[in-house]
């Protein structure tokens, strides 16, 4: 009982912190943490729980981001109206990508996801309709509340936190359900699972669909907050890698691992940039890279295991 109570207190404190701190920059960092946590937690569904390490998730993120601003460009509606379109597109993409690539194992699968993501990025960056290299812009000046263009980062923080809560709740339910059980089996050994009668392809696809949908949502939210999208910033390989890094750092295959990873990595990025970036010596990345390296070296399973929060980790 008291464990649950402390958990609630911690959550309440963390949610109230940005409000109390009153510092716009920190609030923005907090909002970015939530956004990164959404993508990483979404990735976690297929990469962590199902053990299929996709390094091409940027396509889903980009689908969401582009759809939002494309809908705005074509219809003048608030960009968030494009989010359902983004989700639909990414679900379609997930089917198209998943079906051929899921027969690949391990590193081959990862490489295939990279290749597909890069392919799509190049096509998009040359496609006039979606802005080609110039990219797409959101409303320059906010026209209504629906544009979700806030001066203060606080509304973004709470919005993203809400979306994350929904995602984590769904993940938790999934984890306890038959699907979670099957995914665990797939992760532990695909051939064995197959021989035991687990409908491997169906559940991998389900995990991917869920993952893709939420990643697309994250992409739309990103587009709404930043107000600009181009092939490099929404479909670049760094977007995919970032999701993987965050989930892995916190602990892939755990419920709160990606959130923890985001809560550490995003402020770390901001701090190193704030402290060293202006010097232009590259120290930012030296420190950042070294810290990631050290964490991976000493805690390959992610940092969440340091906290031993949930004894029942996915094996």
């Amino acid at each position: 009982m008291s464990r649950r109570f402390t958990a609630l207190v911690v959550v309440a404190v963390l949610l109230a912190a940005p409000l109390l701190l009153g510092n716009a920059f920190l609030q923005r960092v907090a909002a970015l943490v939530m956004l990164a946590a959404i993508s990483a937690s979404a990735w976690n569904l297929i990469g962590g729980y199902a053990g299929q390490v996709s390094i091409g998730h940027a396509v889903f993120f980009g689908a969401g981001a582009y759809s939002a601003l494309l809908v705005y460009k074509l219809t003048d509606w608030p960009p968030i109206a494009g989010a359902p379109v983004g989700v639909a597109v990414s679900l379609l993409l997930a089917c198209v990508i998943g079906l051929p690539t899921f027969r690949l194992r391990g590193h081959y699968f990862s490489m295939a996801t990279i290749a597909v993501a890069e392919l799509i990025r190049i096509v998009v960056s040359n496609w006039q309709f979606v802005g080609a290299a110039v990219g797409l812009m959101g409303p320059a000046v906010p026209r209504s509340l629906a544009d979700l263009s806030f001066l203060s980062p606080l509304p973004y923080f709470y919005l993203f936190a809400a979306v994350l809560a929904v995602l984590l709740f769904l993940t938790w339910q999934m984890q306890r359900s038959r699907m979670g059980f099957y995914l665990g089996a797939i992760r532990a050994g695909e051939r064995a699972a197959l021989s035991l009668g687990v409908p491997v392809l169906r559940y991998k696809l389900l995990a991917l669909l869920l993952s893709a949908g939420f990643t697309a949502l994250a992409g739309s939210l990103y587009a709404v907050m930043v107000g600009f999208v181009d092939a490099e910033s929404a479909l670049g390989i760094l977007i995919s890698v970032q999701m993987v890094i965050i989930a892995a750092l916190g602990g892939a295959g755990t419920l709160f691992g990606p959130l923890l990873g985001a809560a550490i990595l995003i402020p770390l990025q901001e701090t190193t940039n704030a402290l060293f970036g202006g010097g232009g010596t590259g120290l930012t990345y030296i420190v950042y890279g070294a810290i990631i390296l050290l964490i991976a070296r000493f805690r390959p399973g992610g940092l969440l295991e340091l906290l031993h929060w949930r004894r029942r980790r996915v094996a």
Partner: protein
Amino acid sequence: MILLQVVVGGLLLGAVYALFSSGLTLIWGMMNVVNFAHGDFVMLAMYVAFLGYTVLGLGPAWFIPLAAAVMFLFGLLVYFALIRHVSRGPMLAQILSTFGLALLLRYSAFWVFSANFVTLPDTLVGGNFAIGGLRLQASRLVAGATALLLTIGLDLLLTRTALGSRLLAVAEDRAAAQLVGIRPDRMQALAWGIGAASTGIAGGLIALFFYISPTVGESLALIAFVTVCLGGFGSVPGALLAGLAIGVIESLSAYLIGPVYQDVVVYALFVLVLWVRPQGLLGRA
């Protein structure tokens, strides 16, 4: 005639890709370790070659072996400091740690050398000349020939020598290898060292005709990954074949369709091949 030039150019380019990937085949294929820092290893080798030329006044015949030696030692260092601890862990830990390593290497180079582009004079290994109507660059021919030799050498090493069979044994079944008296740690360290030395040779050669900058590894690394995967993990001849194929396909599609789509064609064909042959061209089934 122009088409022939395109194809020959593509072959030479492909040989460079194969060269660039040679160390990676060994490491990834044999040790099953994803090395996100591979491109930056080659970048470091290029700088070693550059320093060898500008500071020590060495010619290519010297600075290329120098780069190989330095990278060999560096590979051992990286193995013992990092890889040993993550190679048996989950793939994610490898991705995470080598990604951190990549940033560390890239920006250490950035700090020391700054962001500027530098080049070696393009006449170090002879200039360019024409045979028939074809224009060729001596440095690229040398790089291509070396790629071939390196592939053959590595393949022979792995399949015909006692050392090679020990390396393969460890790759196949670490515990069993240990039981027959092979020291897996030592073998893997050696594999890393040899892989790194290959990047040393690659970097030294590529520096002869390409530009050098801290971020040069980024552009080439992805092609290396595709090459190794397409060839089939663990197959050294596969990587050569894949590299050549990619080079030719890239050059032909660039010339016939448009340079913008060359990568699209390569990636599409890559995914197609994997669909039909999930283990790559020459990989183990």
